[in-house]
């Protein structure tokens, strides 16, 4: 059995976000890039499953659609423990573009389980996983918070409104994973970092695909309003401020 983890290359979550070209492009200058946190957790769970599978899972691969600049992110995934990596050589345009590139690759190189993070921490589109399963005509399960194996059967848990749902399925399928899938991402070991030098990272040309959307403009959220401290004894002042200044009551 083979597992593929789709990896997005995203800015570090503490990055100060800026835009260029009349606020239509993200300014990547000086940005530290990381594995999308959900994807990193998906990879961690995939590795746990492989380690506990007694050899039934023979390989964990990672894939990314991106330029050469994203290779350090893929190599980090290799250092964490993925067996090999694939980079589709294209600048990602939108979710459809990315899903199409992944689908083309997967039609020729099928996997049993395909894991996608629920969204990427940069654009938060939550689209690639669903689109990928549609393009491949495969079942997909969304909002997966647990994956376990019982022989050939795969048991998935989903967080739903007010409870959780347990599903059983067989391969192949796409799982769109979220919080709970693994406790915390793995820290690569020195051995892992050393081994990553030698693990295969295959670069595949992109296929012709047109993006369905384009960015018209970005806008930063308004700065946080200033905090005003009111003495706990002074309830009247608080009421007056809420009424006249904040105009919420």
């Amino acid at each position, binding site marked *: 059995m083979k597992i593929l983890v789709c990896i997005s290359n995203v800015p570090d979550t503490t990055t100060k976000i800026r835009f260029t070209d009349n606020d239509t492009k993200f300014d990547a200058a000086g940005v530290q890039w990381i594995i999308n946190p959900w994807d990193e957790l998906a990879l961690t769970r995939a590795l746990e499953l492989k380690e506990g599978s007694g050899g039934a899972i023979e390989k964990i691969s990672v894939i990314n659609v991106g330029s050469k600049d994203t290779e350090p992110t893929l190599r980090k995934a290799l250092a964490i423990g993925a067996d090999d990596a694939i980079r589709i050589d294209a600048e990602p345009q939108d979710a459809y573009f990315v899903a199409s590139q992944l689908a083309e690759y997967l039609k020729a190189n099928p996997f049993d389980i395909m894991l996608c993070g629920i969204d990427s921490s940069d654009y938060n589109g939550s689209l690639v996983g669903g689109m990928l399963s549609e393009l491949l005509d495969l079942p997909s399960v969304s909002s997966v918070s647990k994956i376990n194996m019982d022989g050939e059967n795969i048991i998935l848990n989903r967080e739903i409104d007010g409870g959780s749902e347990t599903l059983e399925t067989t391969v192949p399928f796409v799982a769109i994973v979220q919080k709970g899938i693994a406790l915390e991402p793995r*820290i690569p070991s*020195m051995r892992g970092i*050393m081994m990553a*030098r030698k693990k295969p990272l295959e670069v595949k040309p992109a296929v012709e695909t047109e993006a369905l959307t384009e960015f018209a403009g970005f806008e930063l959220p308004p700065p946080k309003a200033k905090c005003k401290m009111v003495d706990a004894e002074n309830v009247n002042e608080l009421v007056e401020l809420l009424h006249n200044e904040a105009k919420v009551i």
Partner: protein
Amino acid sequence: MNFEFTEEQQMIRQAARDYAERELVKDVLERDEKAEIPWKHIKALKELGFFGMMVAPEWGGGGMDTLSYVLSLEEFSKHDSATAVILSVHNSLVSWGVEKYGTQEQKEKYLRVLATGEKIGAFLLSEPEAGSDATHQRTTGEDKGDHFLINGTKNWITNAECADIYIVVVQTHPEKKHHGINALIVDKNTPGISLAPHEDKMGMRSSDTHSVMFSDVKVPKENRIGDDGFGFKFAMKALEGGRIGIAAQALGIAAGAMERAIQYSKERKAFGKFIHDHQAIAFKLADMGVKLEAARNLTYKAAWLKDNGLSYGTMSAMAKLFAADSAMEITTEAVQVYGGYGYVKEYHVERLMREAKLTQIYEGTSEIQKIVISRALLKD
């Protein structure tokens, strides 16, 4: 000149940072208070490969360069330099010493287990009356034909309890003075070795420090490192590299205090504005930042020299001296930025200040570094 880190160095630094921020910081205050050895972290850091990270892969190590090691110690020390010094002694003194000067048999027996962290190392040089002056060793290693018989006491031994393998510096031929000194690899469980109680230190409290007593301890002849009489030179060589580790540790302590002081200055208000908007604090931060960056550059350069096979003894002494003194100044100022809160244990900066003090003392005091540096400058 190239000041960029390789992709691998960045990955190693991030791994160390993640571990420090996720794990070390969680129980550091409690361990400091109780002076507890960080067994849990030692185990985890072994699994991650930080013990033996510079040892060549053929011996089971990580094969990483000195700069990667420095970056790791810096990150660990931002949050917990007591754990960092366990690594520093293990890696730069013991593992390096055996790898560089050990025989093939010694490497098979000792380096393999040091490289994986299965066994931890300690370096026993200081004595009650031979700290800075390592030429006058009182601990003897009498030559008994097929073995040495060790008698004496070693002081201030980092890792004395948590280590399994000791490198012990002994006087084997007193008449030859420092040319009669040898370094021996000793299994800690050899009969005749006993430990005095854990020293109750001001800082680095969860790193264990003991006096170690030797009473008729038999060590096979084949455990001597290098030729007869190489011990003093061996110790000095090991300390040259060790100083890079301590410089990195001091640098991390300073960086940890600096980061906390900056953060606090953005949260705390006085006289109606954030304290960093007061020039008294802003200028303090500027001075701290300059010292930190200078210490960083000296330390990285010493590591770079070592990695490039160049002479690094003077630079490592400069790095250790400047980083340790800067760490003391920066942590003291960080406490001042925090004011009363800085004097309270919960906010970490007072602990960093206590830890900084030790970096000016061990592996060669600041004064000894000045002797090393001035001698090098005045040579020729």
